[in-house]
């Protein structure tokens, strides 16, 4: 066959491939070329739509399902968790904050996304009302939502909605203390141009379990800083599903955890870029100490076709302080749009850096103090980024106490968190810093 013949032959069999182009106004009219797993994930208020979790399911791969299977079917909430709302300094709530209870079926309850797994759907089936906290205008002093558990045996369910008006500014701290077996969902929706922070602290006593999640939706050109600090509880498994209502939203999701022997602490973040020119940063850091300490961080980011100009980054760092601790860290990025500013991730699990310790020790600092300094440094910046000065020192003291392993120091630090004696703890922390 001559060259000319072969050319003719190929012209007959090969025709040009045309790539389908999505209509940005209706990106899913055409089947996605590579439909992402996150796009297809089930979202339903009906708990029966979900299969019973097993470790063979992607969402429960790292979860000891047998330790939380009491949350796989609806239950009558015991009401053993008490909820109160006040200003963080103990003063009266200002006019810019309103608190009310609404019945299931009444907006805004149930308007921010849908349950993302069986645990959230079971919560929906079990509760009959929600506590709604609305922020209008500028609220200077952070609002403290205090959830105190009184019983680690009976199952309880809670539903909280935080709604911020357009242009609102303010901070909400949800503090979980005491003993509980709780399935809790928090819905957070913010209006355009608002600047809001929500910080959820889990400092449960031993024997407690806490499951559920937060569903977040950020307004156009609004900033939401969402922080999670998990220090205690036998099993804590929380997921955080977030999207945007309009362009140019900014999302920061920060997380800190300290895991001791036989605790399972799991955080799953899901950032969905469904609007153009939004920014997201996910930063989770944890330390683990003791045999059987287990942490899981799964960071999902999905950039949809209609979200050009997206800038997203996620990071998870784990410090293993002793042998026998296990940290699972899994970042997942699904990018369906090529016109983006950035989409990055970093993840690490490591021990103490010998060079750092040697450097400090060679300056006369004892090994124990050097370890304390390094871990303090590991968390300090992130604690400050949470941006609630009233709790920074108390949290830092709680982390330092855990590192020291001194039971009395841990109790004292936790007491400060439980009693919300933030200022007193702050003075103490400063004097030790000096």
């Amino acid at each position, binding site marked *: 066959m001559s060259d000319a013949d072969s050319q003719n032959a190929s012209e007959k069999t090969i025709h040009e491939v045309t790539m389908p182009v999505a209509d940005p106004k209706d990106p899913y009219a055409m089947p996605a070329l590579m439909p992402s797993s996150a796009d297809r994930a089930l979202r339903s208020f009906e708990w029966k739509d979900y299969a019973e979790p097993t470790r063979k399911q992607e969402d429960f791969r790292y979860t000891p399902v047998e330790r939380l299977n009491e949350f796989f079917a609806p239950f009558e909430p015991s009401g053993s968790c008490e909820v109160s709302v006040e200003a963080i300094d103990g003063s009266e709530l200002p006019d810019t904050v309103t608190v009310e209870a609404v019945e299931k079926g009444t907006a805004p309850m149930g308007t921010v996304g849908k349950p993302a797994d069986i645990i959230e759907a079971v919560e929906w089936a079990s509760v009959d009302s929600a506590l709604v906290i609305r922020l209008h205008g500028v609220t200077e002093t952070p609002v403290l939502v205090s959830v105190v558990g009184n019983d680690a045996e009976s199952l309880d369910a809670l539903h909280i909605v935080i709604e911020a008006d357009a242009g609102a500014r303010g901070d909400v701290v949800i503090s979980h203390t005491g003993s509980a077996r709780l399935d809790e969902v928090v819905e957070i929706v913010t209006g355009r141009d608002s600047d809001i922070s929500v910080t959820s602290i889990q400092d449960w006593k031993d024997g407690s379990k806490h499951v559920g999640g937060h569903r977040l939706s950020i307004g156009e050109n609004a900033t939401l800083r969402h922080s999670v600090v998990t220090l205690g509880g036998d099993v804590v498994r929380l997921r955080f599903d977030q999207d945007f209502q309009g362009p140019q939203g900014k999302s920061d999701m920060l997380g800190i955890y300290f895991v001791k022997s036989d605790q399972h602490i799991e955080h799953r973040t899901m950032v969905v870029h469904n609007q153009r020119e939004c920014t997201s940063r996910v930063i989770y850091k944890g330390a683990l100490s003791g045999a059987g300490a287990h942490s899981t961080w799964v960071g999902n980011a999905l950039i949809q076709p209609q979200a050009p100009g997206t800038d997203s980054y996620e990071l998870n760092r784990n410090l293993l302080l002793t042998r026998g601790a296990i940290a699972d860290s899994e970042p997942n990025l699904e990018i369906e749009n090529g016109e983006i500013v950035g989409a990055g991730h970093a993840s690490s699990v490591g021990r103490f850096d010998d060079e750092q310790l040697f450097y400090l*020790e*060679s*300056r006369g*600092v*004892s090994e124990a*103090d050097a370890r304390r*300094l390094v871990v*303090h440094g*590991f*968390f300090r910046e992130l604690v400050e980024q949470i941006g609630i000065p009233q709790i920074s020192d108390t949290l830092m003291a709680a982390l330092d106490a855990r590192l020291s392993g001194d039971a009395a120091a841990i109790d004292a630090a936790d007491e400060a968190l439980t009693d919300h004696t933030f200022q007193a703890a702050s003075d103490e922390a400063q004097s030790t810093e000096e």
Partner: protein
Amino acid sequence: MSTLVIKDLRASVETKEGRKQILNGVNLTIESGKTHAIMGPNGSGKSTLAYTLAGHPKYQVDGGEALLDGENILEMTPDERAKAGLFLAMQYPVEVPGVSMTNFLRTAVTSVQGKAPSIRTWTKELGESMKRLRMDPKFAQRSVNEGFSGGEKKRAEVLQLELLKPKFAILDETDSGLDVDALRIVSEGVNRAKENTGLGIMMVTHYTRILKYIKPDVVHVFAHGQVVETGGPELADVLEEEGYDKYLPEGSTESALA
């Protein structure tokens, strides 16, 4: 008057090819107020000597002793060596994120001196030392060595030398990565510390450049893990002229080894 006596020091390091002997019987005596330059080709073990004396966990001592005023520091933990009066200024100071310089320095001075310095004298001393080293006061608030330039890291090392007031300082390639101005400022700091406290100095260096600023009393040539020649300051001039080739194994040159 203090004395650091190194006797027949032998040390090794774990490598992929197995344990490798690096120090092959080092003998050296340094007295307070004296500056000894340890000069040698790359790979001769000079830095290993510095880190072994400071107690880096990577190096295993296989024999010999290092007596600081009669106490064998090789049996001590790194922080105990620092408390005994030894200081190592590192070639590559380590970054410690999230730990502020001021918190670190105060913790170090408190442990070395055995008690916390009073706030007033401490603030004054820190401020003055930083000013003399032309360090921006903002440095005190930054994390230890994080994001510091090469010159800034070396200044921070000398700042620690001035504040910790050791009996003996080991300077490991302190001149590397410094421009002329920074070299002068850093050297002045070392000389000032020596003048104020009468410390003895063991200066590990490949090049003679720093010796113009920090004058050695004694120069040692270090090769294949041993001191192979000792002389006065004039020995450095000979090395400057002739290089290290005559101390290397037959037929090889330093560039061939590197």
